[in-house]
């Protein structure tokens, strides 16, 4: 698992190096910080999605959840410009967590297959944005300056958006590697039956993963809308696939139980580097979709091959023994 992350890191560095041979400006720290900042939202969503996938589930509703929260805070800000921004972020965090809990409860209490439950909430949450806003946009001039300024504000050389992502990374890392709940995520997906026998409530663990994914989506909703200074129904349309792609490229197994914070970050960064590099090397942005598709297939094929050779080794040693 470690070697896989190393390989991905080497590929990303090689990619940046290759681009830098022709466009040295791309590898400058300032630009790399830009790429990191641009990828921050994807990284945060990928961390939440990873927790869900670890438990053998999937969350297709993250982007819709993000967009709904973005619309809610943008409308709150437009109507009550006096509300402090931290309060709005808290609203987004709680509402996002609640929407995640809806997914989690359906999977836990009603035993609905995760893909169906979140497919349903994906369309419901998107529709709710339309009902809420009446299809209208919340534009930059309707938002208060403080609302738009926060993610851009610089703190010790990095934008606040990047800092929020760093805090989220640390928090999820501590949660996954240093707490019983984090271990339960792995156990619930790695072997649900064994997890039950060791006293882990698999349903509750899954619900917790959905709440984490939802809470991160909520925060990202505010960040997305304030960063691009516009909120409308189709914000982040189809972004859930980028998030899942980041996880898969980062080595998170869709079968559950396998994945790491480092892998998810690198998977997101890989997509982020490609997205930012295409305009620099003068390739039409229309190539991006095909490239990320190819990367997903290559990454899954690599995962599958790694898992299969492991099986063969065990068989061989059993035969020789």
């Amino acid at each position, binding site marked *: 698992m470690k070697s896989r992350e190393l390989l991905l890191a080497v590929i990303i560095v090689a990619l940046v190096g290759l681009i830098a041979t022709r466009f040295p400006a791309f590898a400058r720290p300032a630009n790399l910080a830009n790429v990191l900042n641009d990828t921050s939202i994807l990284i945060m969503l990928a961390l939440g999605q990873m927790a869900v996938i670890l438990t053998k589930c*999937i969350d297709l509703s993250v982007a819709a959840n993000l967009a709904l929260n973005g619309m809610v805070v943008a409308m709150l800000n437009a109507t009550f410009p006096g509300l402090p921004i931290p309060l709005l972020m808290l609203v987004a965090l709680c509402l996002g967590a609640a929407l995640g809990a809806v997914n989690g409860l*359906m999977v836990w209490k*009603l*035993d*609905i*297959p995760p*893909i*169906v*439950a979140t*497919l*349903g*909430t*994906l*369309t*419901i949450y*998107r*529709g*709710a944005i*339309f*009902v809420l806003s009446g*299809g209208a946009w919340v534009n930059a001039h309707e938002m208060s300056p403080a609302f738009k300024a926060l993610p851009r504000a610089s703190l010790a050389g990095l934008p606040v958006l990047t800092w929020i992502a760093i805090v989220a990374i640390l928090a999820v890392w501590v949660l996954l590697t240093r707490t019983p709940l984090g271990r339960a995520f792995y156990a619930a997906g790695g072997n649900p039956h064994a997890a039950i026998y060791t006293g882990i409530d698999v349903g509750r663990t899954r619900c917790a993963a959905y709440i984490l994914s939802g809470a991160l989506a909520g925060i990202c909703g505010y960040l997305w809308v304030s960063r691009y200074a516009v909120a409308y*129904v189709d914000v982040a349309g189809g972004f859930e*696939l980028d998030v*899942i*792609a980041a996880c*898969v490229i980062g080595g998170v197994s*869709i*079968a559950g139980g396998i994945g790491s914070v480092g892998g998810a970050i690198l998977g997101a960064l890989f997509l982020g580097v490609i997205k930012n590099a295409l305009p620099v090397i003068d390739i*039409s942005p*229309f*190539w*991006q*979709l*095909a*490239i*990320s*598709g*190819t990367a*997903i*297939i290559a990454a*899954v*094929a690599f995962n*599958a*091959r790694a898992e*299969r050779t492991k099986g063969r080794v065990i068989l061989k040693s059993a035969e020789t023994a």
Partner: protein
Amino acid sequence: MTDARIVPDRLDTRASRLLRSWEALLLALAVAIFIANAFASPYFLDPWNLSDATFNFTEKAMIAFPMALLIISGEIDLSVASIIALASTAMGHALSLGAGTPELVLIGLGTGLICGAFNGLLVTRLGLPSIVATIGTMSLFRGVAYIVLGDKAYTGYPEAFATFGQGYVAWVVSVEFVLFWILAAAFAVLLHVTSFGRTVYAIGNNPTAALFSGIRVVRVKFLLFLMTGLFSGLAAVCLTSRLGSTRPSIALGWELEIITMVVLGGVSILGGSGSIFGVVIAAFVLGMVTFGFGLMNVPGIVMSIFIGVLLIAVIALPRLIARLRPHRHA
């Protein structure tokens, strides 16, 4: 030997009994929606309007039938809408090189077949989980369409080509609607009458047991992916013919609507059970809901809330009822 025969038999009747009641419920829902629509709008019962309404589901249902088989076998294909985009782009490209109608149709179907074979190879040869593999090809296929077309579009399809999506067999009965019924009948026979259909259920219920009982699991799954690709190609022919143009964003998001149709039709997303009859009714339910809401000027996105709730409700309800049942016994 007798034990081995009792187990699948019992599973079978229980499943089919459940399905029968499921389809009855769905049929009642379809009738209720039809009547509600007829009361809600004076324009609903017009034969031409009803004929137009069928276009809301015919193309999607063409893919939903093979998708039902694929999901019953325990796999899924999320790339179908992207196959439509790529097949349509291939047809548009051939058109710009001077291809006639027969060539266009062949190229549309052929592209679908190749895409299906590619998905099938990824899943059966490389052993990739189909949900991730087809998320990948979903980006790849549409990505290629974007590379070829960018923000441009292919237009100017020949008049003969328009027959598939705009033609009528007789009076208000469209070519697509006839195609829909032919495919429904063909897939019903394939799934419910032939031994191939039985193997699909067997694989979905227990792939290991199916393999050990001599079923060529890999080959059947590959064929199902091939079929899903081919009929996505057919849907691409019909949709392109109906719209008369190709853009890379064609049929965007259809994969979710098609899967909704299949699941609403009573096919278990976990594999192993479902029927074509259910998918046919689900197609009508979704088509009429969309059309009825459209007549009442309800925006499309509000309809999608209804469809999302419907999708969750139809799966949650039987589970809630099943949970109440043991209480009654106890």
